[in-house]
C-alpha cells in the first residue's frame, strides 16, 4: 500500500527525547533524596516507568527496594521512603497513614512524594489535614508524554475519560494543555490548530496561555497541524469490535503500554511471554494495520520466504556459510521467533472468536451502524443478555451510562411501531428492556444516522469490499463503516470546518480552527512539513482509529502522530463506568 501514496509523507520527529527528558527528571528527583531509599510505585505507573528506565537506573540512584503501592501496611525497614504516585486522594491518605503510624511509634524517617505528572491541591490538603504537611516533601515528575511508537504518544491517563466525561472534573485539562505545550516547545511551533469538543477547546486555551506566558523564542519554521478531538464526539467507533490485527490483539489480550502478555495458549509452553508490540517488530509492523482476514495470507507468505532464506544455506561453501551465520542468521532467527509468535496469536484469536459467534456479533454491529434490520439486531442483543448473568451492581452502571448519554430509556409515551412494541413486550426483564431501548434510540433518535449520511460513513459497496487493497478507512471495520473520528480529521484537513456546519451542529458544536503565527499560514500549507499532523484524542483512542489514520496518511501523504490520553477499546470504555468497586 505504501507504493500507492501520492506524496511522500514527512519523517516523524524523534520522540525519544521525551523519554530522556522524563528519565533525567526522575533521576534528578531521586537525587533530591540522597542516600538509600525504598521506592513505592503506584501500580499503573509501573509500566510507563519500565518504558523509560530500568531497575539498574533506579539502583544507581540509591533506590534500595522497590514496592508496589498497595493498600496494606508496609514492611520497609529503610529510613527513607519515596513514593511515586498518581495524584489520587486515596493514595495520599494511605501514605499519610504510614507517616502517622511511624510518628506514633516514634520512628523517624524521611518521606518524599513524587506526583506524576503533577500534584493536585486536593492531595496536598490531605497532607495538611493529616498533620504531616512539611514532614513529607512533595515533588512533581512531569512525565506527561510516553512515546509508545514512532507515531504514537500516550499520556497514560485512562482515568481522564471517567473524570472528565462522567464526573465532569476538569483536573486533567491543564495536564493535557501542559503535555501539548511540551510538544510545542520541543517539536513545534505548529501552524494550524483544529479541534472539536468542549474539552478540546479548553485544552487548547490552557495550552495557548502557557505559550503566551512562556519565553518567546525566535520563531522556528512552523511544523505541522494539530487536531484535537473529544472522545464523546464519537463514542460509536470506540465501542465497535475491532478487526484489524493490532485492535484484535488489544481486544483479546489487552495491550498495556505497548506491551502484550501472551499466555501459555499462545507461547505453547507453560510460561507467559511479554512481547513489545511496535514498529521495531518487523513482522508485527507489517500486519498490525491489516484486516484480520489478510493476516493469515501474509504470515504464510512470510513463512515461505523465511524458509527460502534458511534454505540458502544449502550448497554454500564454508566462507559463504560463515558470512551467512554472522550476518543473516540472527535476523532470520528473530523473524522466525516473531513469526511463530504471531501465528500462534492468530490461532488463539480464531479459537476464541469462533467460540463467541464473532461473525454474528459483527453482523449485528454492522446492521446497527447501517440502521438495517434493527429488530433482528435487538433480538440478537436480547438473546445474549438472556444467556448471561449480571449482578445488581449494574444498577449503578446504568446510572453512569445514562449520565454519559450512552443509555437512553424509551419513554412509555414514545411512539413505537407495532413490531417494536412486541419486541418490547417479549422482554420482561427490566435490565434487558433498558438495554434494548438504548439500542433502539441509538438507531432512531441519535444524531448518528444523520451524521453517517452527511459524512458518508457507510460506504456503498457493489459486491464484495476488497479488504486486501482497501479504498477507504472503512476497511478497519470490514468495509462496513468509516470511523467518524477519523473522517472528521480527513475532512477538516482538506478544507477546514467550512461546509461542515451541519455536521458540527449535530456534534454539539465547539469546533475551532486557529492559525498560529498570524496571517500567511494559508500560504505555507502546501509545504512538506505541513504534512505532519498531530491528532490528539482527549479521552482515549482505539488501535483501529490509529490504523485508519495510518491508512489515511499513506493515501494522502500525511504523517499522523497520534497523541492520546490512553489507548481504549469497547471493554475499557465500559469498565471505566462501572461502579462496583468502592
Amino acid at each position, binding site marked *: 500500500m505504501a507504493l500507492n501514496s501520492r506524496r511522500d509523507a514527512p519523517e516523524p520527529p524523534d520522540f525519544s527525547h521525551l523519554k530522556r527528558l522524563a528519565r533525567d527528571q526522575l533521576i534528578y528527583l531521586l537525587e533530591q533524596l540522597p542516600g538509600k531509599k525504598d521506592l513505592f510505585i503506584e501500580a499503573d505507573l509501573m509500566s510507563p516507568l519500565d518504558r523509560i528506565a530500568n531497575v539498574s537506573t533506579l539502583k544507581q540512584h540509591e533506590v534500595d527496594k522497590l514496592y508496589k503501592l498497595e493498600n496494606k501496611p508496609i514492611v520497609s525497614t529503610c529510613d527513607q521512603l519515596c513514593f511515586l504516585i498518581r495524584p*489520587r*486522594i*486515596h493514595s495520599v491518605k494511605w501514605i499519610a497513614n504510614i507517616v502517622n503510624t511511624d510518628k506514633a511509634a516514634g520512628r523517624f524517617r524521611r518521606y518524599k512524594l513524587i506526583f506524576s505528572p503533577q500534584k*493536585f*491541591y*486536593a492531595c496536598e*490538603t490531605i497532607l495538611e489535614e493529616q498533620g504531616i504537611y512539611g514532614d513529607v516533601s512533595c515533588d*512533581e515528575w512531569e512525565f506527561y508524554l510516553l512515546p509508545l511508537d514512532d507515531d504514537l504518544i500516550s499520556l497514560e491517563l485512562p482515568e481522564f475519560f471517567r*473524570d472528565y466525561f462522567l*464526573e*465532569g*472534573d*476538569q*483536573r*486533567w*485539562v*491543564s495536564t493535557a494543555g501542559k503535555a501539548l505545550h511540551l510538544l510545542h516547545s520541543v517539536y513545534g*511551533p505548529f501552524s494550524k490548530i483544529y*479541534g472539536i469538543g468542549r474539552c478540546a*477547546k479548553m485544552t*487548547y*486555551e*490552557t495550552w*495557548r*496561555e502557557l*505559550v*503566551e*506566558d*512562556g*519565553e*518567546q523564542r525566535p520563531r522556528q519554521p512552523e511544523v505541522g497541524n494539530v487536531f484535537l478531538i473529544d472522545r464523546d464526539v464519537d463514542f460509536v467507533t470506540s465501542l465497535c469490535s475491532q478487526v484489524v490485527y493490532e485492535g484484535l490483539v488489544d481486544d483479546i489480550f489487552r495491550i498495556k503500554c505497548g506491551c502484550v502478555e501472551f499466555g501459555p495458549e499462545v507461547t505453547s509452553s507453560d510460561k507467559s511471554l511479554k512481547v513489545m508490540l511496535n514498529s521495531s517488530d518487523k513482522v508485527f509492523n507489517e500486519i498490525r494495520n491489516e484486516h484480520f482476514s489478510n493476516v493469515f495470507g501474509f504470515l504464510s507468505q512470510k513463512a515461505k520466504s523465511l524458509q527460502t532464506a534458511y534454505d540458502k544455506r544449502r550448497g554454500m561453501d564454508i566462507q559463504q556459510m560463515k558470512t551467512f551465520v554472522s550476518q543473516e542468521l540472527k535476523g532470520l532467527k528473530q523473524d522466525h521467533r516473531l513469526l511463530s509468535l504471531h501465528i500462534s496469536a492468530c490461532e488463539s484469536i480464531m479459537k476464541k472468536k469462533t467460540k463467541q459467534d464473532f461473525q454474528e456479533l459483527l453482523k449485528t454491529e454492522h446492521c446497527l451502524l447501517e440502521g438495517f434490520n434493527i429488530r433482528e439486531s435487538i433480538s440478537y442483543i436480547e*438473546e445474549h443478555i*438472556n*444467556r*448471561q*448473568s*449480571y*449482578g*445488581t*451492581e449494574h*444498577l*449503578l452502571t446504568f*446510572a453512569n451510562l445514562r449520565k454519559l448519554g450512552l443509555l437512553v430509556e424509551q419513554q412509555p409515551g414514545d411512539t413505537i411501531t407495532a413490531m417494536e412494541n412486541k419486541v418490547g413486550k*417479549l*422482554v*420482561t*426483564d*427490566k*435490565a434487558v428492556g*433498558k438495554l434494548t431501548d438504548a439500542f433502539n434510540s441509538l438507531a432512531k433518535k441519535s444524531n448518528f444516522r444523520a451524521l453517517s449520511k452527511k459524512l458518508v460513513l457507510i460506504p456503498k459497496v457493489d459486491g464484495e469490499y476488497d479488504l486486501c487493497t482497501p479504498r477507504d478507512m472503512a476497511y478497519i471495520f470490514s468495509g462496513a463503516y468509516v470511523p467518524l473520528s477519523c473522517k472528521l480529521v480527513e475532512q477538516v484537513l482538506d478544507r477546514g470546518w467550512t461546509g461542515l456546519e451541519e455536521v458540527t451542529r449535530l456534534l454539539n*458544536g*465547539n*469546533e*475551532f*480552527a*486557529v492559525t498560529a503565527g*498570524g496571517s500567511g499560514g494559508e500560504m505555507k500549507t502546501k509545504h512538506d512539513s505541513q504534512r505532519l499532523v498531530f491528532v490528539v484524542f482527549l479521552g482515549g483512542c482505539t488501535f483501529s482509529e490509529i490504523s485508519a489514520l495510518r491508512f489515511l496518511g499513506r493515501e494522502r501523504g500525511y504523517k499522523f502522530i497520534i497523541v492520546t490520553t490512553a489507548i481504549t477499546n469497547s471493554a475499557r470504555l465500559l469498565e471505566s463506568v462501572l*461502579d462496583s*468497586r*468502592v
Partner: protein
Amino acid sequence: MIQNKPDEDDYWNNSKFKAFTFEDEDDEFSQLKESKRAVNSIFVADDDDEDDDDVEKVSWSGEPVGSITWSIRETASTNRMTGEERDYGFPKTETTAQIPSLPKQGSSYSLSSLFKGRSKLGNFQVLSDCIHWVPVGYRPGATNNPSVRSFAPELRKPKSEYKDYISDWSPEDTVRRMQKGKPYSLESFRSLKDKLLLLDEAVQVHDGNIITAVLIFLKRSLSKEILFRELVSRQIALQHFIHFLKEAGEQILLLELLKTLGRTEDMALLQYREHLNIQDEVQRKDFLKGCISLPFSVDDASHVQDHYTLLERQIIVEVNDKHLERAGQTEIFKKYPRKASILNMPIITTLYYSCFYHYGESEGMYSSPTNIKKTFKISDKQYLLAALGARAKLKAWKDVDTLFTTKNWLGYTKKKTPIGFHRVADILHKNNAPVQVLQEYVCLVDDMDLKLNLALKYKCHDVIIDTYKDMKDRHQLMLYRCKVDRSSPEERKIDDILSNTQIRWKN
C-alpha cells in the same frame, strides 16, 4: 545594573527607585523579583540573559511614578480592550465566549506580547500586574527563585502594613499563581463576592485542580447552606465539588448537597452504593431493606426491592444447603460439591443454582426454581435458558425433554420453545450432549438450511440423511455416503434410501 548578589542590599538602599511613593516600596521590589512572570516579560523587553537579578532592566525609571498608580486603576479596563485587538501570535479560539461580567485587568494576556514595540503601555501593564501580586502570600523559601530567598525575609514587613494592597490582589492573579504553583493566599478573599469571583475565575481558566482548590477553601470558609446555594448556579464548580466529596469520602456532606439540589435519585443511588462496603450478608440485607424506601426512580425502586428479596432468600438457601452438604446425605451435593456460596450472586446465577440443586421442588420452597421464577418475574426465555443449562450439565435428558413438551387440547404432545431449537441444540452441544439427544432437537429446527448446517456441525447423521432425502437431493446424499463409516448403520440407511424407487430425486 546589579552584577553580583552581595551588592544587592546596598543597591536597594541607594536606589533611584526611592522616588517611588508606595509606603513599603522595598518590599514591593523584592516581591517583584520573585514573580517569574514579570521577569519573563523583562526578558523579552531586553531579550538578554536569563538571570533573576535584573529588576532594574525594566525601563520605567523615567516614568512619573506617582501617576502610575492612578493610571493603573484608570486603565485597568481599557488595557483589556487594547489587549483584545492585539495579534496574539497564538490566537484564541474564535468561538470562545468570554464571561463579560468578570473584570479582567489585563493579566490573562501575554505580557511579552504587550511589551513588544509598545513600551509605554507595556510598562504600565507590568507594573500593574506586579502590584497586584505583591505582598499577601509571600512565604520565604517557598519560591523557586533562589535570589529572592537570600534577602527577602529581612525585607518582609508585618501584614498590617500592606493590607492596603490585599484588595488589589485580584482573583485573576491569585488563580494564575496557583496554576503556576507559586505562593498565594486565599485569606484575603473574605467577602462572599470576592470568594465567588475567585471561584468564577478558576472556572474561567478551565483548571479543575484550581477549581477544586478554591472549593476546598470555600467549604472551610462558608456555611454549607450558602455554598450550596451558590453552587446551584455554577454547574461546573458543582460537578467538581461533588466529585471531590466522592473521592474524599465525605458521604454525609454530599448527601446533604444532593438533597439541597433536589437530586433525590442521585442521593438514593449514592446511599444504595454503600452496600458494597458491607461484607456481612445479614448486615447487608438489613441495609438493603432500609434502601427500599429511598426515592429511587420507579424502575430502580423495583430493582432494589428485588435485590433485597434476593439476598434474603439467598441467606436462607445458603444456610440450608451448607447444612445439607455437610451432612453428606444428599446425593446431588455429594456428587457435585458446591464450588462457591450462592450469596450475592446475580439472579440468573441463583436460578441456575436452584435448577441444578433444587429442581422439582414444590413452589412453596424458597429454593425451588418455580418460586424464584415467580417471585422475580423471570421471563420464560430466561427461565428456559437457565433450566436447560443446568439440567444439561447434569445430563438429565429427561428433564430437558420435559422442558419443551407441551400438550395441546387434544392431548397430543408437541415440542415448543420460545428460544428456537437451534439455540437449544447449541446449549446441549456445549454441555456435551450425546448425538442421540442432540439430533432430536436439531430435527425440530424449522429452517432447512440451518438444520442441515447444525446437523453437519454436530455430526447428526440421521438428521443429515433425512434432510437430504426430504430435499430430494440424491447428489448430496451420495457425496455424504463417502463420509460415513463403511458398513455402518448410516451407510445402510443411505443405501436403503437411494434404492427407494418411490422418491423423485431432483438430481
